[in-house]
Every structure is written in structure tokens, then in C-alpha cells.
């Protein structure tokens, strides 16, 4: 890679949009090229200065009461919409909708959508290969705490669970890394484990009711794919998937040991969250949100 190539890719390099191999080529070039190092540094400083200037520009800041006004407006709209939905003439329609929805949900739970299930398994395998094994994700992993603040507070559970070292009848499990990463359109909380000399990915993702997996704390083994075993556990809101080249039975056993406490803690997170949110007056019906 020459100076011209590096200059062409410099901004994508800084934006972490390049493949790991290309990043390495640029880093090798920068080791020996003062001119390109200076150029990259200037671009980095420019981006950072621009971002800071934008976020602290006084003329772009909202006035203090804007957030309060916005929240009040949203709550009023949601309440009004909720009340109008509750007029007597609509009770029959609502009852019919509930019966229909219950039927559809039951059908989904009985049949389990193989397509959604397959998507989750495919993403989990992709993340395991590209993050845990080859470290070539398009977007760089981020700390779990940051991901918990930005995306889903449940990722915080993975900061301490599973523990750094876990003993199992077949040998110790050691945590190599904890972070959040994205593969395709799906974000994961990712704990990379070492077990019997193999790398195992423990991936947690929000299922949003769309994984097609029945809610169950039991480890469910899936068909081996591309030489990798996959085992999943599903809470009401999150799926936990283990991927490794261990045997299916071995991985299922491991999943029961390391994931069960995690599922229990996830249950705790959800109950706490439900208790917190139930106390808030904001009202929004699930049906309204689908209009």
C-alpha cells in the first residue's frame, strides 16, 4: 500500500469502516511514513474538533424547558390516543382483536418460526467467526457499559455474569473478553470464553419476540452448521446463544452451567424494569403503536 492508497482510505480508516486486513496494511504503512501519519493525525483532530464545536455551539442548544415540554406533549398525545381507543363502541372490536392476537401468538409459539430462528443462528455464527475468531467486524466492538446506556440496559448483566472463572465437571471455563458488537443488523452482548482449549462465544441479544424461539431456560441444541455447534436459551425478551466448534452435547452441558445464572439474572432485570416502568404515568397501548 502506498501513500496515495492510504490517503484515499484515511477517512474510512478513522471511521472504522475498513476490514481488519486493510486496517493492518494501513498501520504497517504508518509505521514507516511520517507524512501519512501526520495526515491521519490532522484528519483525526479535524473530526474531533468539528464534533466538539457542533455539540457545544450555544446557538444549537435547546432551551432548558424544551425537553419538559416535549415529554409533556408526548404523554398527553399518548393518553388522548389511549382514551379515544377505550370508548364503549370499540370494546367489541378490541375484544375480537385480543382473541385474534392470542390465537396468532399461540400459533407462533406452537409452530416456532424457523425463518426467524434461522436468522438469529446465522447472525450468531457470523459474529462468532468475525469477532471472536478473526476479529474483522466492520464496526468496532464497544464496552458493555456504553452499549447498556445506548442500546439495552440488559447488557450490563454481562459485566459480571458469567464469572471470570467457572468450574465445571469437565474443566474450567475462563472469560477472555466481554464487549458489545454488531453483526448484520443485530447487536449482541458478547462474552468470549475459553473452555477445553476451544473458543466459545456467549451471545446475548434482544429477541423482541421475533426470534421464533419459545421462552425457556433450558438449553436447546440446534443442528450443527458449518462445523459449529449452536445452543440457545430464550428468556421472554432476550435470547442467549452459545457458538463453538465443541460437540453439541458438550456445548449444551456448558450452556446449562454458564447460562442458567445469566437467565435468572436477566429475569431479575426484567422484573425490576417492569416495576420501575409500571410506576410511571406515561401511557401507550401496543395497538396504538401499530397505527
Amino acid at each position: 500500500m502506498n501513500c496515495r492508497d492510504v490517503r484515499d482510505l484515511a477517512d474510512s480508516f478513522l471511521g472504522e469502516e475498513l476490514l481488519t486486513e486493510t486496517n493492518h496494511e494501513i498501520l504497517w504503512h504508518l509505521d514507516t511514513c511520517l507524512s501519512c501519519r501526520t495526515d491521519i493525525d490532522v484528519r483525526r483532530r479535524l473530526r474531533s474538533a468539528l464534533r466538539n464545536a457542533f455539540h457545544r455551539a450555544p446557538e444549537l442548544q435547546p432551551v432548558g424547558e424544551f425537553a419538559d415540554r416535549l415529554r409533556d406533549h408526548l404523554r398527553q398525545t399518548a393518553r388522548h390516543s389511549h382514551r379515544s381507543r377505550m370508548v364503549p363502541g370499540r370494546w367489541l372490536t378490541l375484544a375480537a382483536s385480543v382473541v385474534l392476537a392470542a390465537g396468532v401468538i399461540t400459533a407462533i409459539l406452537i409452530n416456532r418460526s424457523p425463518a426467524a430462528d434461522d436468522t438469529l443462528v446465522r447472525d450468531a455464527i457470523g459474529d462468532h467467526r468475525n469477532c471472536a475468531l478473526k476479529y474483522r467486524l466492520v464496526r468496532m466492538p464497544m464496552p458493555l457499559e456504553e452499549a447498556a446506556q445506548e442500546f439495552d440496559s440488559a447488557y450490563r448483566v454481562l459485566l459480571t455474569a458469567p464469572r471470570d472463572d467457572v468450574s465445571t465437571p469437565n474443566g474450567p471455563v475462563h472469560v477472555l473478553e466481554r464487549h458489545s458488537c454488531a453483526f448484520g443488523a443485530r447487536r449482541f452482548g458478547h462474552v468470549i470464553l475459553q473452555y477445553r482449549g476451544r473458543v466459545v462465544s456467549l451471545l446475548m441479544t434482544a429477541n423482541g419476540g421475533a426470534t421464533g424461539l419459545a421462552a425457556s431456560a433450558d438449553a436447546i441444541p440446534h443442528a450443527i452448521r458449518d462445523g459449529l455447534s449452536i445452543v440457545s436459551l430464550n428468556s421472554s425478551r432476550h435470547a442467549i446463544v452459545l457458538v463453538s466448534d465443541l460437540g453439541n452435547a458438550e456445548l449444551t452441558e456448558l450452556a446449562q452451567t454458564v447460562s442458567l445464572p445469566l437467565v435468572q439474572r436477566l429475569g431479575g432485570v426484567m422484573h425490576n424494569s417492569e416495576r420501575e416502568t409500571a410506576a410511571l404515568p406515561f401511557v401507550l397501548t401496543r395497538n396504538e403503536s401499530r397505527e
Partner: protein
Amino acid sequence: MAKQADLREDSDGGATFEREVLPHAGRLFRLAMWFERNRADAEDVVQETMMQALRSFHRFQPGTNCRAWLTTILQRIVSNRRRAKGRSIVVSDPDDRIADAVPFVPPVPQDLTDELLLGSLRRLPTVFQEVILLCDIEELSYKEAAEALRIPIGTVMSRLHRGRAQLRSELVAAGTSHEGVEAL
């Protein structure tokens, strides 16, 4: 009993919306303010963004980038308002036309002030401002920016390349007339 369960579900959904979405209001406002240049219009845009987000919150997938999702909604509202006001920036292939105006990338001045930076950004064509705001300031990925702007990912990349180069040219031009600015 069923009603209680329903209300509990409602309350949870609403609180989830507040928890996920409202923390981004400040960032959304800054973006809206940049494009609208008017506080009342910017507040309208953010409010409309939030209302659309509320209506389509069922489409938001927990665990994905909420800020990118909201920015996409806001960007489309701004774009629609711009078109309604008859100041559409959609022209036939602006990239090719503007490409000739960026012959080289000069060195950027040191000691950049906020005014110099934002003034230079403001002088860029809007199509360049948009990608720089989304990718460099809001830190959206190329893919997320492409979805927000409804343009191909390759166009995002080429506009970014040209926009950043033109921004550096603007900074040099502004810097030479700015006392105390020293070229690298």
C-alpha cells in the same frame, strides 16, 4: 383483570419509549437547528420526529442503534420540509458537478476555532453538510447514513470524501484571513 394487564403493558411500553428515545432529544435538536436555522422550526421538527417515533416504536428493534433510527426519521422530516418550502437540494447528479470543484486537498490550519469550523461547514453544499453531520458528528456508519439519506452507500462515501476535502479547502481559505492561524 384483563384491563389491569393491558394498562400495565401500556405503561411499560410508554416508559420504554421515554427511556430509549428522550435522551436523544438534545442531539436531535442540534441537528434540526443546524438545518432549519430557526429555533421554533427546529422544535417543530424534533416534536414531529418524536411523534413519528412514538407511532412506529413497534418497528424499533431493541438492541439496535436508537440514535441512528431517530436521526433517519428526523432527516426525512427535514428533507420533506425543505421540498415543501421549494428549496429542494435534489439536483441532477450533484456529485459529478461538484467533483470538479475539489481539485486537491490542502493542509488544514492549526488552532481551529469553533466559529471557523462551523462557518466553513456551513459554506459547503447541503449534500456534503448532511453526510459530514451524520457520519463525522453523529458517528453513524456509512450504512446507517445511506438509509437516513435514502442514497446508495457508495454515494455516501464519495460525498464524504469530497465534502471533507472541500471542508479543508474552506478552512484554509478562512484560515489565511484569520489572524493567528498557522498552516501545518
